[in-house]
């Protein structure tokens, strides 16, 4: 007697019960996909946004720069390293920058802030959040002009508008105080008040001159990847290479620990929630299977009296769990696909709830709630639920195998 067929038929003798239990598994698929997918989408966006805010997914910097940045700590042979990094397949863009603290002064006021010196040719809206957030004027023209692009609030406090000059004072490579002049070419608004009120972009070469850097020296190189998940492995392999021995290669978790922390906590909360739901579903499965076993004591008793071994009985119930799980998964996949496609393409626009200047862990957020799953996650979910169903079926199956035939017949 083919156990498989028997198991399948057994299941469908109780259509309603099987369907309801299968639905709960299917629902579990939906939930799991939604939660995990929301997480995957959300975290990836945040990590990418964080990377675009300056340090990239991977950062190559002078030793100790990350812990205590200063203009004295510089990265040499920047061009050479940039070329090396660009060769790598995982890399989407490589950007060299100088970053530092400065006082920005107009005739009216002076305010302390941060400057990021960039090469306008290398940076575009796709890898630089500030360019993306330009609201007035335009980006810097060349790498060596006298322009400056600053946050709207900084300009407002200094009482500056487009075309006006600002003097920035900072410390150069020797520790001396230096000043230089720049004219406002553009203004950006990111929505994060600390950024809009305290950050400015300057041309890389102009800053190199002011700080007394060589033309090949920068503060750090930001490396952006096509897929942020490659950052860990890549960072490790780069740090090992001889060329990067006397530098620090850091990934985004090290350069943005706040963001990393938030994501870690959110992920755990997510996992805990999913665990709870998984437990619920398994409770339902155990309930169903156990009931179905208990009510078939007589049937099993007869089968064992006719010569079926306890082992086979165990196998039978396990197979029933198996097919139940399969059915549940298939239904689950069927109902989840349209939902997933909708959420992937369109998503839920939560802007009304969140407003449009929502920042999380220091990174500005997009308020459209979408989901997106990585292949690994999909596989993970399916395997997880499947195993769950099987494990849940184990106890009932065991119970079934322990029924003494006599007891079974007694129930007659």
């Amino acid at each position: 007697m083919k156990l498989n067929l028997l198991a399948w038929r057994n299941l469908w003798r109780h259509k309603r019960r099987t369907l309801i239990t299968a639905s709960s598994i299917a629902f579990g698929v939906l939930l799991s996909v939604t939660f995990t997918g929301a997480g995957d989408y959300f975290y990836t966006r945040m990590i990418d946004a964080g990377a675009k805010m300056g340090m990239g997914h991977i950062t190559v910097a002078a030793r100790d720069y990350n812990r205590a940045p200063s203009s004295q700590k510089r990265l040499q042979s920047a061009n050479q390293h940039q070329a090396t990094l660009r060769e790598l397949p995982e890399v989407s863009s490589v950007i060299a920058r100088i970053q530092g603290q400065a006082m920005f002064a107009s005739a009216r006021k002076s305010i302390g802030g941060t400057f990021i010196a960039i090469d306008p040719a290398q940076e575009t809206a796709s890898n630089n959040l500030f360019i993306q957030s330009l609201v007035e004027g335009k980006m810097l023209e060349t790498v060596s002009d006298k322009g400056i692009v600053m946050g709207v609030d900084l300009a407002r406090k200094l009482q500056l508008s487009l075309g006006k000059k600002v003097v920035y004072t900072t410390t150069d490579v020797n520790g001396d105080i230096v000043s230089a002049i720049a004219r406002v070419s553009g203004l950006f608004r990111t929505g994060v008040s600390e950024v809009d009120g305290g950050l400015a972009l300057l041309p890389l070469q102009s800053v190199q001159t002011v700080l007394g850097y060589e033309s090949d020296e920068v503060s750090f190189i930001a490396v952006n990847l096509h897929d942020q998940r490659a950052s860990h492995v890549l960072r490790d392999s780069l740090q090992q290479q001889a060329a990067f021995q006397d530098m620090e290669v850091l990934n985004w978790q090290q350069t943005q620990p706040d963001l990393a922390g938030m994501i870690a906590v959110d992920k755990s909360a997510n996992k805990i929630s999913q665990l709870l739901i998984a437990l619920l579903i398994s409770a339902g499965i155990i309930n169903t299977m156990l009931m179905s076993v208990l009510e078939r004591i007589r049937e099993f008793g007869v089968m064992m009296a006719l010569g079926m071994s306890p082992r086979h009985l165990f196998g039978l119930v396990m197979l029933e769990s198996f097919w139940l799980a399969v059915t549940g998964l298939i239904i689950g996949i069927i109902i989840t696909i349209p939902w997933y496609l909708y959420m992937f393409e369109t998503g839920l626009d939560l802007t009304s709830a969140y407003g449009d200047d929502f920042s999380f862990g220091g990174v500005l957020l997009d308020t459209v709630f979408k989901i997106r799953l990585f292949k690994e996650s999909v596989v993970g979910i399916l395997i997880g639920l499947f195993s769950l169903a099987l494990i849940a079926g184990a106890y009932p199956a065991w119970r079934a195998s322990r029924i003494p035939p006599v007891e079974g017949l007694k129930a007659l």
Partner: protein
Amino acid sequence: MNLFTLASRNVYRHRHRSIVTTLAMAFACTMMIVFAALMDGFRIGSERNVVSMNTGDIQIHQPDYRDDPDIYSLIEQAGAIVEQHQQLGFYATVRLFAYGLMASDETSSGVQLRGIELETEPTVTDIDQHVMTGQWLSGDDPHGVVIGKKLSKLLDVGLGDELIFVGQTADGYMANDRFEIRGILKSVSAAIDNGGVFMSNTMLRELITLPKGAHEIVLMRHDRTTDLAAVTAQVKSRVGEQLEVMNWQQLMPIINRFIETAHLQTLIMMIFTYIAVGSVVLNAMLMSVFERIHEFGIMKAIGVKPQQLIVLIYIEMFIQTFLAVLLALGAGSVLSWYIQENGLDMSSLADGISFAGLAFDPVWYAALTSNALMMPSVFLFIIAAIAVIYPAIKVAVIQPVEAIHHQ
């Protein structure tokens, strides 16, 4: 025929099935209670984080102070306002602020000096408990200061190290003095972490020659369940038009929105969870009725009325659900209480979590609120009741002969 007695006997007779069903429901309900407690704990903890760490319920300033922190922008009658509100059911304290340069052996950095009333501040906020290494301020040690976490790294200093402050007094002279690091704080907010230096108000007043007045008054309600907006309005009318009165929701709109949306998020989660629970209960209830259709058929055949059968089924459901809820309340309370006292320690995941410029405590405490206990229990009853409708009606309607032959 006493239906109740019959119901309880039925439940007892089909022990195994009843136990399994009851346990499944109890389990589901327990999960919901723990989950609700965690969510409530998160919401309460977040608010506490914001409010009790540093912000307080309500703050009072001169109208232009927050935009342009000028040391001359003082609330002159600060002392009187504090006393008045202490009589009216608030904890109250004042703060003074000054900006200047702190120099260590290695380097120097711009800082914000935060003058604290040693006696009243701990009644309003918990910042004194937030010291990572070292100790909080003490009246015996006026030159002892407590500094922010990142500031200690920027200045490359640790406990016991000396700092020199350079700034300007209110009467135009140079403010200059030595201080010693008494404590370093855990993460509080971006501003405090990067440049906050806490000292006693007595010391600060002397340092910058500001004997009277204060820059900020902080109030905390004794009873925090009152309507914050209403209380804020009352304070405003009491204090007068010249001063700015704002509550924490207005001062930190982003955090406020976060907490609200976290609330929204947890609500969505709860709904999903309830749906999952619902399917379990539905399943259990359906099975427990349908598998006895034969039995019901016989009862009908001997004359039991359909309404009576429905009532019977409902009582059986009620008994099982009631037991399930009792179990769940018990187990759920114990678990939630445990997490409430000890919390889930997330700090292995994150060294310091910050959100919109504010630091969050990485330990997640549950809150065993009546809400967390009641909602899941009530819901369980409702779901079970709904789940039984279909089978109950079917039983009521079916022909006895059909029922007896039903498979």
